[in-house]
């Protein structure tokens, strides 16, 4: 067995003492040790984006990030966004525009788009499309995901 290491990690505003194998990914730590199962394992090699979380606010692939390398940085998962128990404006737009079907890619899509919309106040549709280059969806053809994000942009104006 790979040697276990002990450290603390900050996730969604709380600090957790964990003991995981030194080669454990952040995705494994989140899902199996902290039971934060919102981030998904779709390909486990950094292609599909279903595992997207934020590290110090920047989108990152949890499946490609070694848990032990997170250090003092703050991790945010889908469970940690928005006000307690309420959907964000983007999540509401996803629901109202039918931007999810099976829902498996949705947490990653939301985390990716939330960060992009935070950093880009008024992107157009093609900029939003380009921002999804790291997120795969097999169900929607991306149309309604872009509709939802555009609705958020429009509401800001």
């Amino acid at each position, binding site marked *: *067995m*790979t040697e276990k290491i002990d450290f603390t990690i900050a996730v969604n505003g709380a600090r957790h003492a964990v003991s995981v*194998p030194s080669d454990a990914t952040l995705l494994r730590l989140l*899902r*199996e040790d902290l*039971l934060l*199962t*919102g*981030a*998904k*394992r*779709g*390909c*486990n*090699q*950094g*292609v*599909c984006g*279903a595992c997207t979380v934020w590290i110090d606010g920047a989108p990152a692939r949890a499946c490609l990030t070694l848990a032990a390398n997170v250090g003092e940085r703050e991790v945010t*998962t*889908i*469970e940690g966004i928005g006000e307690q128990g309420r*959907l964000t404006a983007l*999540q*509401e737009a*996803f*629901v*109202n*525009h*039918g931007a*999810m*079907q*099976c*829902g*498996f*890619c*949705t*947490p990653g899509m*939301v985390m990716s788009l939330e960060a992009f919309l935070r950093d880009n106040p008024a992107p157009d549709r093609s900029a939003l*499309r*380009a921002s*999804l*280059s790291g*997120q*795969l*969806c*097999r*169900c*929607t*053809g*991306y*149309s*309604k*995901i*872009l509709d939802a994000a555009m609705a958020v942009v429009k509401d800001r104006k």
Partner: protein
Amino acid sequence: MIQDDAGVGARVPRFDGPRKASGRARYVDDMSRPGMLHAAIAQSPYASARIKGYDLSRALELEGVRAIVTGADYAFRRVGGTLRDETMIAVGKVRYMGEPVAAVAAVDQETAERAAQLIEVDYEPLEPVITPDAALRPDAPIIHEDLSSYVKTLPGTPHGNVVWETEMADGDPDEAFANCAHVAEAVFETQAQHHGYMEPNGVLAEIDENDRIVVTASVQSVHMLQARVAEELDVPMSQVRAVAAEVGGGFGGKHHTNIHSIAAWLARVTRRPVKLVLSRITDMEIQKSRHPARIWIKTGCDAEGRLLARDVRITLDGGAYADESPNVLSLAVLLSRGPYRIPVMRARGRVVYTNKLRAGSYRGFGNPQITFASESQLDELALMSGIDPVDLRLKNALQPGDTWFGGQPIQTGAMTECLRQLRAARESAPALPPAAPHIRRGVGYAGLAHTCGLLGTSASVQLRGDGSVVLGVGAIDIGQGSGTVLTQMCADILKLPAEMIARTGVNSDAAPFNWKTAASRTTYMTGRAVVQATENLRTCMVEHAAEMLEADPDTMEIRPGGVIAATGTNKSVTFADVAMRSMFRTGGPLIGTGSLVYDGPPIDRANVRVEGMAFGNIGGYAFGAQCAEVEVDEILGTVRVVRAWSAHDVGQAINPTLAEGQIEGGLVHGLGLALCEQMVWDDDGRLANPSFADYRLPGAHEAPEIFPILVEEPDPTGPFGAKGLGEMPTVGIPAAIANAVAQATGKRIRRLPLTPERVLTAIDGEESE
């Protein structure tokens, strides 16, 4: 119809939206149990080999291993669909590289995987057969030596390496071609495609306190899953409880498979919960693909473009096990005429075993392959006869009152209207800005037809004591939104707000029977069962209300908000009043039920020659037409679909937002088949690209702007007039894209995917491979 609430026709936000948007939806891999073990599968390194023995000693020595099972431990039963040729784990012989030969349960995933690698199997390698051509040679190694002894559930003629043969004929095309002004003849080929569900297949198996086996899975039918696990573990079906978890995409790739029985078996051996969630690599290696196809097709028309005859020969590569191959072949044959009048037709097909991953059910079910060939060929005929491709299709479009290939009457259908609206939408779209000099633009069209009526389904609607309602169906919402759509039908009839209607989860104990969430049939088939069940409940409630109000039941009406009133009076009772009364009069709140099996007109076997058709009754024809506008880069050979239009004969859209979602997603799924997706095997039978890094799914930047068009001509047999839609948007778009590329380049490519290499070869005028 109610437009402004939860009823039919309303753009109701899907009910599972909040849990999915917030990450709370629970898929199999999100579940755990106290004491749960993790499973891993040992896989064959050969595409064909005899198994001479197993040495488990090194694997068993590993700390944390709780059980290992192999084909030697197994009183095996061959299972399958129409042809029962497969065991959950290889017994005596492996027939594709990656095939499960043993499985391990261990305390954690890493240990299970290490143990699987330490299992030593003594193989005697055999010569693999990788292509249908090789499999059909007279001296080819036989993949299933005992084929003739396998059980078949329908009449068929498997022989040698041929899994199944199907033929339909209406007239003699050889004679008819002599009278044609134009005849096109060519061979078209399509490739293996992976379903690409974002969630890999997975199952959690456990033994409950009553010693029953509980399998919770990402699956498209709990009832078929229950049947398969019970059969493979040799227990009564009642001893298996099958539960659907949230399903992270299906597309035909989440039916009952080998992994469910393997996990259940390990749970029984260890008496511990066992989770088996496949890695993406293993999933791609051991589940299934879309059938690769080679299609010879010949079509003739008169000088005015009226289609007179067609002859088709289809060869499908079925891989190592039959799975649903006979059925896929049969549908391809049945749909080989497409949505057109062609008076003389013949279609002959076969599926061939090879030493590769099994091919099976996949969105479109043989139809994208045959439609790629037939709709490409129509454009070639249009070019030969000097007729506009859309006009050619309009001239030949099937009309209500016509018959299908097979003699089934077409009762409703909006093929002409789909083509008209599609063309009008495309022609009124704003012009694109000028393209760079090395970009060639083209526009291509394709028509399509598909079925949505098949087999059996049922529903229950139960009144609760407070007047709220619980809807039960065996149909699983695999993302398409059936939970929302079926609830809207129920809400419309009972005039209840959506929050008063809950859905049972789908498990085999509680859910009324449903064959499968498949074949574009849930809205049409299960929808009809929901309408029946809800009307049945309404009738029971009205009878109670009439007695309570001392009124004639025929004068009663349902009013919004759960009220039953005597028409024209202010006398009324609430659903809650009725529910409370029924408890004391009939022993419990009322239950309405509905069930049906597809009941449309059958194939006319007296007048059409039909052999090896692996369906009982199938029908419910729905039509569509698709258009792609492409840009071909003549330097790089790349094809970009800029815009796409897609018009569909939906009968009645129960929820337009969800219907559009099916069109948009299905279209991009077909775009992947057309342009970038391909499973590739090397000469030894090794799948060369079993990962998302190496197998390319369409990304957002490859998806076009899509303009869905819902053509609503209600079907009197459908629930509220609705027809099915799930597969249709995947069916025509590969041909539409190929036709657009042909228009842009002047060159016809008859092989998918349209890779840059093939496009450049075509542009350069060299012989296509």
